[in-house]
Every structure is written in C-alpha cells, then in structure tokens.
C-alpha cells in the first residue's frame, strides 16, 4: 500500500487509459506542458507526446466541439474545463450535441468522450472558481454525471468513464484533490451507476456526494460520539445514472433521511434525490426528508464561504430536526419572512 492523493489517482487513470487505448486523447487549456492548473495531466505530454495530450486555443465551446469532431473519427477525447464556471461557454455544445448525438442519430453516431470539470468550493477561490455546476449537467438527458469522493473512485470511475460508450461529465471536487488514501493502483471500485455505503448505521441515512463526503463522514462520527445517533453515510458517486436501489434500501432500513449537497439547493440535485426518496420510501419514513445544501446565492467571496458551505454543525442540526420526539419540525417554518410579518 502506498499513499496516493486524489489528484495522483486521476493522473494515473489518464495514464493507464492512454496506455491501453491509442484512441484516447487529452486536450484542453494548459493541459500540455504545464500539466493543468491542478496538475491532473502532469507529465502526460512529456510521456505520451503532443499527439496524445495537447494544449488547445483558449475557447471552451471550441474544445468541446472539436472533441465532438474527433470522436466522429473514432477518437476518445478527454477534455478539461479548467474550472466549473469556465465550462459554461461550452454549454451549448454539451447540451445540443454531446448529450443528444446518440439519440438524434438513433445510435448510429455516438460520442464516447469525457468532460472533466473541477468543481465546487471550499478552497478559498475567488468568484467564478467555485461553482457547483453538476445540476445543469444532471438535468440534461444523454449525459452521465459522475463525481468521485475518494482516490480509489477517482481512479476507477475515470477509467470507466473514458472506456464508456456514452459521454460522461466527470465532476472532480477541487477540495478533494489533495486528499489521500492508502491505495494500490490500479484499483477497481463499483461501477458507474452505483452508490456506496461508506459508513453503516441504523438511525438515519445521510446521502451525499463529491465535495461533501468528508463532511458527511465527520458528522456521522460526531453524531455517534455526542448524540448517540447511528448515521449511515451513502456516497452517491454517480448522479446519472442514479442508484435508486442502494439509496432506498438504506432509507427503508433507517427510516430517516437527510440529503447533503454543497450546491445551491433550489431546483437542484439534492431536491431531486429528496423527492425520489419521498416517493419511494414514504411508508418507511418517520420524518420528512430534509436537505442540507448550499445557500441560494451566487458563490460567496472566500471570507464568507464558511456560511455557505454545509459543514458538520448544519448537518447535525438538520439530523436533529428529524422529529425524533414525534413533534413536527417548525424550526424555520415561516421564518421572519414577509408572510409571518403580514400575519
């Protein structure tokens, strides 16, 4: 066993994919000589040559569209959007072409390409560097949306994404790039489309993914030590396809559920997950499904990001509101808002 960071695992996945399949190419902004601003593509140009890993002009729609054209010629492009918010110029290519090509051509023209997106916050980044953009992609039929939370998954899911016949948006939580694990690579973890129970528990299911996985595990530890709540933590790993089976099995077992996601909550992935759980596990639930998510604000400046990011306390408070004593939860009902004042 050796200590491997999340970033190293991604780099190794790219290397192994480049080695195994001559059609794999890596392209994007600064991915060549520099090795990417997060060094995920470190050394690839040196070791595999300009043909396999190369810098492109600075234009994200161009990068995505160019990859579409290369995929038409049988290549398997892995493109990097330098940061979440800088993937937005490519959005039209992603939504109108990458997501739809298989469908509009009845499966005759497929685009096996991977869009790597370093995403979310918690790194003290200034504006436009910390957006949680997974919801936009997950809302788009035709894309797989995958987000690893551990170095082993970073490796295994990226390998699988590159080998997939479908386009995959591979969301890399920036905050986890420097996280470590004792790990021997190559390693194979559960496939895309499956969630994993990261910590078993019997009282409440905490569903989460990507950047908030460490928060969830920490909250579970604190809950056990201080509140005597036995929290089961489920890592979704794959937003699309979604693993209803693992998620529902856990909630039916525990009877309570909190969904934890860093993204702004309104109309987002956490809301979808909460709705799915409510629809499928209603009779097993002792309390409404609650969400802990980012605030519905543009991502805040670094000095205020702690108010926005969910954090262990907010998770514990929310678990505390799961009607343990059979009282309805009115903690924030009405709030000091207009309606309360009008009354």
């Amino acid at each position, binding site marked *: 066993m050796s200590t491997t960071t999340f970033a190293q695992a991604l780099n190794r996945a790219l290397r192994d994919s480049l080695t195994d399949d001559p059609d794999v190419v890596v392209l994007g902004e600064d991915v060549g000589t520099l090795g990417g601003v997060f060094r995920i593509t470190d050394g690839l140009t040196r070791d595999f040559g300009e*043909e396999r890993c190369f810098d*492109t*002009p600075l*234009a994200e*729609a*161009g990068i*995505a*569209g*160019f*990859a*579409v*054209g*290369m*995929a*038409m*010629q*049988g*290549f398997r492009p892995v493109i990097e959007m330098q940061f979440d918010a800088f993937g937005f*110029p490519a959005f*039209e*290519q992603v939504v*109108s*072409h990458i997501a*739809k*090509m*298989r*469908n*509009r*051509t*009845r*499966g*005759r*023209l*497929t685009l096996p390409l991977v869009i790597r997106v370093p995403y979310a916050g918690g790194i003290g980044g200034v504006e436009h560097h910390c957006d949680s953009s997974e919801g936009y992609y997950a809302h788009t*039929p*035709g894309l*797989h949306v995958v987000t690893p939370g551990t170095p082993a998954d970073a490796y295994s899911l990226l390998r699988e994404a590159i080998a*997939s*016949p*479908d386009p995959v948006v591979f969301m890399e939580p920036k905050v986890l790039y420097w996280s470590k694990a004792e790990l021997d690579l190559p390693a194979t973890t559960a496939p895309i*489309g499956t969630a994993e129970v990261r910590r078993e528990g019997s009282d409440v299911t905490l569903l989460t993914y990507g950047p908030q996985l460490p928060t969830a595990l920490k909250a579970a530890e604190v809950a056990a030590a201080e509140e005597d709540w036995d929290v089961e933590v489920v890592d979704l790993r794959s937003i*699309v*396809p*979604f*693993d*209803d*089976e693992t998620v529902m099995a856990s909630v039916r077992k525990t009877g309570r559920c909190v969904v934890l996601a860093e993204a702004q909550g309104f109309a987002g992935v956490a809301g979808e997950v909460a709705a799915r759980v409510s629809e499928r596990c209603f009779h097993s639930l002792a309390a409404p499904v609650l969400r802990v998510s980012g605030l519905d604000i543009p991502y805040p400046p670094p000095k205020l990001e702690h108010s926005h990011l969910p954090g262990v306390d907010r998770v514990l408070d929310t678990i505390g509101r799961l009607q343990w004593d059979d009282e309805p939860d009115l903690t924030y009902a009405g709030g000091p808002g207009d309606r309360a004042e009008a009354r």
Partner: protein
Amino acid sequence: MTDVQHLLPCPEPVRFMDEAGTLVPGGPGELATERGYALPSDDDLLAVWRAMVLGRRFDSQATALTKQGRLAVYPSSRGQDACQVAPVLTLAEQDWFFPTYRDSMALVARGIDPVEVLTLLRGDWHCGYDPVATRTAPQCTPLATQSVHAAGAAYGMKRRGNGGVALCYIGDGATSEGDFHEALNFAAVFEAPAVFLVQNNGYAISVPLSKQSKAPALSYKGVGYGIRSEQVDGNDPAAVLAVTRAAMEHARAGDGPFLIEAHTYRLEAHTNADDATRYRTKEEVAQWQGRDPIVRLQRYLLDRGALDQARVDEVTAEGEALAADLRARMNLEPEVRPSELFEHVYSTPTPQLREQAHMVAAEEAQVMHG
C-alpha cells in the same frame, strides 16, 4: 512584414459567366487564374447542371409537401442551387460533410435518400440518415455549432492520415456566432483539412447582412485567423465548382483550412412559415430571379452544344420521377414507436428510463385494448 496577400480574397467575387451564361471577357481575372481557379470541363458542368435540376425539383416538391401538411416545416434553398450541389460533387470517398438545416438539396446531391433527408422535417425522428455510413453529420440547427465539429473531424482525419477533408456549410448570419470564429481558429492552429463555405444569401431570417457585419466581405473573416480565403459568385456554378475544387485540393494537400464566401440569394422565404415580404422587396427578388444559376449554366451548355433539348427533357423527366417517388413515399404513414424514445438516449437505458419506458408501454397497451 506579415504576408497577408495570399490569404486575402479576390477583390471581386470570382466569376466565369454572366447572368446570360456568357463567359465574361478576360476570364475570372488575373489573380483568380493565378490561384488556379480553372473553368471546369463540360462534363463536370453537365454533372453540376443535372444535380441542380434534380435538386431544385426535390426542393419544390418538399415545399409542396409542407402545403399538404406532410412536413412540419421546410427551409428552401431555391436560388442557392449552385452552392448546394457543386461543392458536394467535389467530395471524395473519405471526406465528411457538415450541413445546416438549409442544405437538404446538398444532401440529395450527396446521394442520401430524399426520404431520409426529410425524416427530421416530417417529424418521424431527428436525423434520418446514417451519419457514419454517409460521412455526413446530422443537419445542424444550432447556428455555427457544426463548424467546430468540422474542425475537429478534419483534424481527426489528418491524425488518421486518410487524406480526408471536412466540408462545412454555414450561413451569413451564423458567421456572427462565436463558434464560427472558434472553428476557424482551431482549424488554423491545428492545420486541419477543413473547407468552410459561407452561403451568403443576404439574410438571416429577416436581418440583412448590413446589420450583421461591417466586414468588407465575410470572406475577409478568414484572414485574421491565418486562413486562405476567397469569395465567389455563388450563382455561377462554374465559379463555385472551380473555387471549391481548389479549396479542397488546398486542404487535402496539407496546406490547412480554406474559407469560401459564396454570394447568393434564397428565392423563397426563410421557411414556408416565414413572410419574406415583410423585409424584402419584390424588385429585389426579381433581380435575383434573373441570376438563376440553373438557367445560367443551361444556357452556357446549350450554347456550346454540350447539352441539347433531348438531354434537358431526359433530366427533367428524371426530376419528375424523383418527385413522384418522393410524394409516394412521403404519403405513407411511417410507424413511430414511443418505445424508441428510450432506446438511444444512452448505450444502455438508465434504471430511471426503464421505469418511464414501462409507464409509456403500459399507457400504449391501455390505448390499444380500450
């Protein structure tokens, strides 16, 4: 000093013949001749003429099908016939073609079954033909987005070393979109064998070119990207063929991308649903009717004795047969299957799609069994 002269288009659109089908005295000019734009042979022009006659018959039949409610909508390219067919006839076996919604006639010239061309507009599915087998991308509606695909495909073919070239069509209005510029830049930087053909028909729906661009001509837009650029009289089939041929050879030889602007005009409205009288005059349309590319080339070929009335009648009959076959097949009600909605979204349907497929199948079964 940077040498831009070789990138710049000819000061006037390249042209071999006037509206009457008479060769212009002195040919297309010294620069054009120097650039290798040669008057095509009679045989080549006969092929272009035939494809235009058939293409136009297809086009008018498609317009008629909208009136009978067989097509949801049809964007006609009548008047742009030379641009529609001549470049397509220069494509080699391995080349890829990237058309827009306007370019149905071009697809027919490419040899794609007219019914498969119209699948999108009949509403049976989206793309009706096999893009891989025909090396033709689906007709692209989000403006200019196909141009980056063409750049990438061209680079892909270069990497494969198969000698292929990507030919990409785009409208005048779409040259304002960012993707067009990103495509030119990518194609140039990667020295990709791509030919971009702007069909400048003067309008983007209702908006005239004067509100679209202040460029001296759209062909100048290639120069800033280091791309060889040219402009051509898009209603002179000989000129369109000659310039496209040179452009394809340029790209195929490894000399990088090429941009062509073809000055032309659509004689019909933007689509059958559009009312063109709101933004252009009858006089303007009449003027362009006088520049009809088919009339022009037919006169030229008749005058030279390369074509006779018997052959004209023959090809006209061929066109009628194509139209009759199209009518007959478009009048059949094709079966559409709701279950297919779930089949191509992913290589394997997600569990969520399987659930929805079950729901729709159950609804269908209920409808069928009362």
